[in-house]
C-alpha cells in the first residue's frame, strides 16, 4: 500500500527526470543518429501544436483552422529576437526568453481574434481563423525586412532535444493544470451545452477568450522551437496545409485528451516520416505526402470522429486529487446526515 502511494507521488517526476537525462545524453553519446534526433524534435513540437489546437477544437468544441498563423508569429518573433536583438554571445541563455516572447506575441494575436469571433457561436471562428492564417502568410510575404517570400534566416541551432523535451513537459503540465481547473471544466461545459453553461454561472465569454489566448500562446512556443531547429523559416511553412496537419493530429489522437494529443502527434509524425522513406524507395514523388494528411482527416471524421483516446485520459496525466481513489476518499469525507430521506427512490 505504501509502495503504491510512493509511486503515485514520485513515479511521474522520476520518469520525467530520467527522460530529461536521456534527452541530453542520447544525442551527445551518438546512440541516435541526427535523423532520429530530428524526428524526435518534430514529435515534441507537434505534441505542443496538437495540445494547443485540441484545447480549442477538442475540449471547447469550437473549430479553428488557422493555428499555423499563431505558429508563424511565434517563429518570426523569436527569430527576430535571437538574430537581431540578442547579443550573439548570449543567445543560448536568452533562448527561453525568445520562445516566451514568441508565445506572448501569438497569444496577443489570439486575443485580437478571440474578441470579435466569440461574440457569436458556430462557424464564425473557422472563417475568421482561416482568414487570419491567410493574412499572416501574405503579410509575411510582403514584409521585405523579414525577407518576404524568401524567408528569414540566420538563426543558430538553439533547439536542442533537451530544450524540446523541457518545453513539452512544461506545456503538458500547464495544459493539464488548465484542464483540471474551474476554467477547464468551463471549457468542457461549453462544448456540451453553451446556454446551459451560462445558466449555471459559467462566464462563457471569459472562458472562451482565455482558452483561445492560451492555445495561441502554445502554438507560438512551438513556432519558436520550429524556427530554431530549421534555422530558416519562410511564409510557406505556415500555410493552411500546416494547420491541416494539426487538425489531423488532434482528431487522430483524440479530442478532449492530452494523452490523445501526445499519441496523435507521435503517430502522425512517425507515419509521415515513414512515408517519406517509402516514397523515396519506390521512386514516387514526395508530393503525394500532401494528399495523405487531408485524406486521413476525412477518413477519421467518417470512421472515428473522437479519435483514439477521445475524451479519455492516461492515468499519469490526471492530477492526484482527481484520480478515482481520491474522489472516493473525498466522497467518504463529504458524507452527510442531511438526506431527502423520505423521497429516496
Amino acid at each position, binding site marked *: 500500500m505504501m509502495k503504491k502511494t510512493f509511486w503515485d507521488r514520485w513515479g511521474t517526476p522520476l520518469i520525467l527526470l530520467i527522460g530529461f537525462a536521456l534527452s541530453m545524453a542520447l544525442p551527445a553519446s551518438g546512440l541516435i543518429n541526427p535523423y532520429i534526433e530530428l524526428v524526435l524534435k518534430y514529435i515534441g513540437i507537434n505534441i505542443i501544436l496538437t495540445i494547443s489546437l485540441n484545447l480549442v477544437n477538442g475540449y471547447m468544441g469550437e473549430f479553428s483552422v488557422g493555428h499555423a498563423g499563431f505558429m508563424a508569429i511565434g517563429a518570426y518573433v523569436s527569430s527576430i529576437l535571437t538574430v537581431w536583438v540578442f547579443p550573439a554571445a548570449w543567445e543560448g541563455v536568452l533562448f527561453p526568453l525568445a520562445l516566451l516572447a514568441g508565445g506572448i506575441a501569438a497569444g496577443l494575436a489570439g486575443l485580437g481574434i478571440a474578441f470579435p469571433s466569440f461574440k457569436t457561436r458556430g462557424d464564425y471562428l473557422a472563417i475568421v481563423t482561416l482568414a487570419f492564417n491567410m493574412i499572416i502568410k501574405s503579410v509575411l510575404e510582403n514584409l521585405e525586412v523579414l525577407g518576404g517570400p524568401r524567408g528569414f534566416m540566420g538563426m543558430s541551432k538553439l533547439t536542442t532535444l533537451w530544450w524540446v523535451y523541457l518545453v513539452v513537459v512544461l506545456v503538458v503540465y*500547464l495544459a493539464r*493544470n*488548465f484542464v483540471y*481547473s*474551474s*476554467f477547464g*471544466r*468551463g471549457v*468542457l*461545459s461549453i462544448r*456540451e*451545452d453553451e*446556454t*446551459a*453553461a*451560462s*445558466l*449555471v*454561472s*459559467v*462566464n*462563457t*465569454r471569459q472562458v472562451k477568450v*482565455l482558452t483561445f489566448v492560451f492555445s495561441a500562446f502554445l502554438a507560438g512556443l512551438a513556432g519558436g522551437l520550429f524556427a530554431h531547429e530549421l534555422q530558416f523559416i519562410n511564409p510557406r511553412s505556415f500555410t493552411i496545409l500546416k494547420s491541416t496537419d494539426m487538425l489531423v493530429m488532434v482528431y487522430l489522437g483524440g479530442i478532449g485528451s492530452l494523452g490523445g494529443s501526445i499519441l496523435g502527434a507521435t503517430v502522425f509524425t512517425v507515419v509521415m516520416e515513414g512515408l517519406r522513406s517509402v516514397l523515396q524507395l519506390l521512386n514516387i514523388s514526395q508530393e503525394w505526402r500532401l494528399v495523405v494528411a487531408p485524406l486521413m482527416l476525412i477518413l477519421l471524421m467518417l470512421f472515428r470522429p473522437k479519435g483514439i483516446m477521445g*475524451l479519455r485520459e492516461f492515468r499519469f496525466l490526471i492530477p492526484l*486529487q482527481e484520480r*478515482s481513489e481520491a*474522489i472516493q476518499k*473525498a*466522497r467518504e*469525507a*463529504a*458524507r*452527510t446526515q*442531511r*438526506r*431527502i430521506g*423520505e*423521497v*429516496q*427512490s
Partner: protein
Amino acid sequence: MTLLQIRSLTHWFGGLRAVHDFNLDLLPGELVAIIGPNGAGKTTIFNLITGVYVPSQGEIRFEGQSLIGLQPHEIISLGIARTFQNIRLFKELSVLDNVRIAHYARTHYSIWEALLRLPRFGQEEQRVRYEALELLDIFGLADLAEVPAKSLPYGQQRRLEMARALAIAPKLLLLDEPAAGMNPAEIDQLMDTIRWIRAEFRLTILLIEHQMRVVMNIAERIKVLDFGQTIAEGTPQEVQRNPRVIEAYLGEETIL
C-alpha cells in the same frame, strides 16, 4: 422587501406576443407557481428573468437591482438558479463535474493560480469538491459521482439537475416543469423533495407547471397564463373556482 419584482413584462418573437404585461412580486420564502397550457409563455418568462432573452418591454428587479441587460451568468451569480423543462445536463461529463461547473462563479482563484497550482487553487478546489460531493450525497447521487451524466436513469438525471442548480447557492430557484415525464407516484416524491429543499436551503421558489394538480398542494399562490396573458391569480382554491381558468384550461380536464 420583495425578492423578485416583475413589472409589465412584454416580449415579442417577431409578430408573436409571447408574454404580455406580466407582473409579479415574489416575497422571500414564497413558493409561487405559474401554470398554463403549452405555449402560454411560461418558459419565456424564465428565459427573460435569466437573461437568455432581452425583454421587449418591462422591468425585472432582483433584490432591487435591475436585471435588464445583464448577461445570463451575471444574473445567475446574483443567486438565481434554474432547471430546464427538457433536462440539460452536460451529458458526457461526470456527475461530479456537472455540479462542480455550477461552482464557477463562486470559485475564487485566477488563471495564474490555476496554471501554477498555487496554494489558493488547492484550497478552493478542495472546498468545491467537498461541497459538490456533499450536495450529491444529499440527493443520493454521491456513489455515482464519477459516472457520466448521460448514463443515469431519467429520475436521477432530474435530481442531478436540481443538485446542480443548488450548487449555485441560489436565493431564488426557478423550476421549469420538474414533473414533466413523471408518473403520479414520482410526482408525489417530487413534491416532497421541493418542500424539503425549500426549507433546508431557505429558498424562494418560482415553479412552472403544466399540470394543475401538481401545484395545487404546494404553491401558496398561483398565476395562470394563457397566450401570454395573465388570466387569473390567487390561492389554489381561488384559482380553481375562477371561471376564466375553468374555461381556458381546466375545462378540458373536467370533461376527462
